[in-house]
């Protein structure tokens, strides 16, 4: 078989295949529920209900979506330039470390400490991705493997910090950092509701990234480098500099996920603040077709599946890992569907 480009794909073709991909994911969900001994319709209903059924569930979904918007944006920015940043997890953790250090040690007055924490996080995350990017542009070392391996290194480093220099002396021996003082915590958006300004910052970042991509020279260069780095170089673009700038933005965005989780939600740092937000960001970005505004929608969708599956798992007894399977399946079906909407499969 071979693939033939479809000259002008119809709207039905462009929407039909992605819709079929989502439908296929739902079928997989039903099958998995049945395998685990649940009633497929009831399990699916409980997932939806657990995600958006009550006010508490909706707030929980928004809270869970917040770090995913940041990591999803980080991945979307990088992948658009074909910079394969699989290290959002590491950047998130370094951002969280910087946040806690500045929040507990700097002694800055109230209104200054939060911006300083955010800036510190961005710098830490940006530096974290700049290293592998320079190794790629200067020495040709594949960034996929280096960013992946560094995730493990950074997690061990955080473990060391939490058992050593950053350990909370009042923590009853638990490996956690001291808590941030009250003025270093992100305020709630609406008093009394468990949703913090990290979510607002995430929306602002999504809009900002969209603005950069759609309206600036850098955004154009990032796309050009991603489409064809050689052609971009021939056209006189500083490809390596564009990749370095992309890395700074992407690493900084991922680090803001750590900032927002620590300063907005948890108040301190533990080694388990991220249950794989960095990796899930890849799924979020791909489902959004790497579009920064789409990332918001897909992060809400992905967060809903996680929150819903957690709640369903408690009542229906189907393991909550069903959520991770569904997201991986959705990702694979979606990339296939996007290809099929632009190419026709021909025999021979």
């Amino acid at each position, binding site marked *: *078989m*071979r*693939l033939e480009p479809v000259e002008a794909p119809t709207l039905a073709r462009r929407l039909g295949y992605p819709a079929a991909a989502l439908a296929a994911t739902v079928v997989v969900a039903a099958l*998995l529920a049945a*395998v*685990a*001994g649940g009633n497929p319709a009831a399990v699916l209903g409980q997932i939806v209900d657990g995600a958006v059924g009550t006010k508490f569930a909706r707030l929980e979904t928004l809270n869970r979506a917040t770090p995913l918007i940041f990591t999803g944006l980080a991945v979307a920015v990088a992948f658009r330039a074909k910079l*394969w940043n*699989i290290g959002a997890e590491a950047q998130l953790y370094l951002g969280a470390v910087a946040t806690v250090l500045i929040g507990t040690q700097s002694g800055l007055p109230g209104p200054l400490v939060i911006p300083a924490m955010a800036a510190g996080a961005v710098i830490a995350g940006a530096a974290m991705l700049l290293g592998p990017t320079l*190794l790629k542009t200067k*020495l*040709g*070392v*594949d960034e*996929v*493997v*280096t960013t*992946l*391996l*560094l995730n*493990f*290194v950074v997690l*061990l*480093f955080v*473990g*060391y910090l939490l*058992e*050593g220099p950053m350990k909370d002396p009042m923590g009853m021996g638990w490996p956690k950092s001291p808590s941030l003082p009250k003025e270093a915590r992100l305020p709630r958006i609406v008093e009394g509701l468990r949703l913090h300004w990290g979510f607002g910052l995430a929306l602002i970042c999504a809009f900002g990234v969209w603005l950069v991509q759609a309206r600036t020279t850098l955004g154009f260069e990032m796309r050009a480098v991603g489409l064809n780095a050689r052609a971009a170089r021939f056209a006189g673009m500083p490809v390596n500099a564009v990749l370095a700038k992309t890395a700074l933005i992407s690493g900084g965005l991922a680090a803001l996920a750590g900032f927002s989780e620590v300063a907005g939600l948890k108040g301190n740092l533990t080694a388990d603040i991220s249950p794989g937000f960095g*990796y899930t960001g*890849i*799924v979020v970005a*791909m489902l959004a077709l790497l579009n920064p505004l789409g990332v918001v929608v897909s992060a809400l969708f992905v967060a809903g599946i996680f929150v819903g599956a957690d709640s369903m798992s408690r009542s229906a*007894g189907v*393991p909550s*890992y*069903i959520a*991770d*399977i569904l*997201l*991986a*399946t959705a*990702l*694979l079906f979606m*990339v*296939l569907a996007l*290809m099929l909407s632009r190419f026709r499969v021909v025999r*021979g």
Partner: protein
Amino acid sequence: MDLIDILLSATFWAAVLRIASPLIFATMGELICERAGVLNLGIEGIMVAGAFAGWIAVYAGLPLWAGVGCAFLTGVMFGLIHGTLTVPFGLSQHVVGIGLTLLATSATYFAYRVALPEVSSPPRIEAFQPTGWPILGSQTVLTWAALATVAITAWVLYRTPLGLALRAVGENPAAVEAQGLPVHGLRMGAVAVGSGLMAVGGSFLTLSAFNSFFFDMVNGRGWICIALVVFGAWMPGRALLGALLFAGFDAFQVRLQQTELGAGLPYQLFLAMPYLLSILALILMSRRAEVPAALMTPYNKGER
């Protein structure tokens, strides 16, 4: 314990081979995929799935070798998913590979919870025992199988027409097509068999190194194997050397932790060494490595 004592002890060298064995299987698997032009980032998840499949099969009452076979078939199945998406459909090997790792890992954990809903700690099985043979007697027969895999891979790649075709399909698929050979078939086959070997590497952990299945037991070994393929410059013998060197460092650091020198350093530093060494290996080899020319380039007939 002195540093020299460590290197002279028999248990050290036994540990080197034990640590290297799963890496050898999986590195050969990845090498076969990449030689045929397909980067398989599903390796980490496939190793998790293989570790589970081998263990659950033996737990269900099958003999140990059947467990290895189940692991291999599980790997082949995931390999066929990867191959279908990346070879005929030509999708991004990065995205599909990461997606497959997420899929295989979560499907494994899901299957574990469904199969064993009630247990708090995973049940043990009767794993492969040391052979007691005059040479490498403390190793299990699976370690011998790992070493044999290297020899077979090298022989097939460099001494058979199939190997020539496989290497050619990773260098210049159009030329292979001109010879009348099936480009897609060769690549699919390489990814399927390679993924099978990755899964066998995972099953070494549950059937030989340990006798049970734990979450996170693969712990980045797949990513390390990808670095080992680069370190080995896509050649089986050199990749074996890389795996042994790597395992040597790993066995050494575990023993170093127990010395006076090691006790003063944070243990996390030792645990991070394997990953840091892999990155170092990538940096050292990056300039000299001969990457298969068509690696990560899908082949679509009639397109240039």
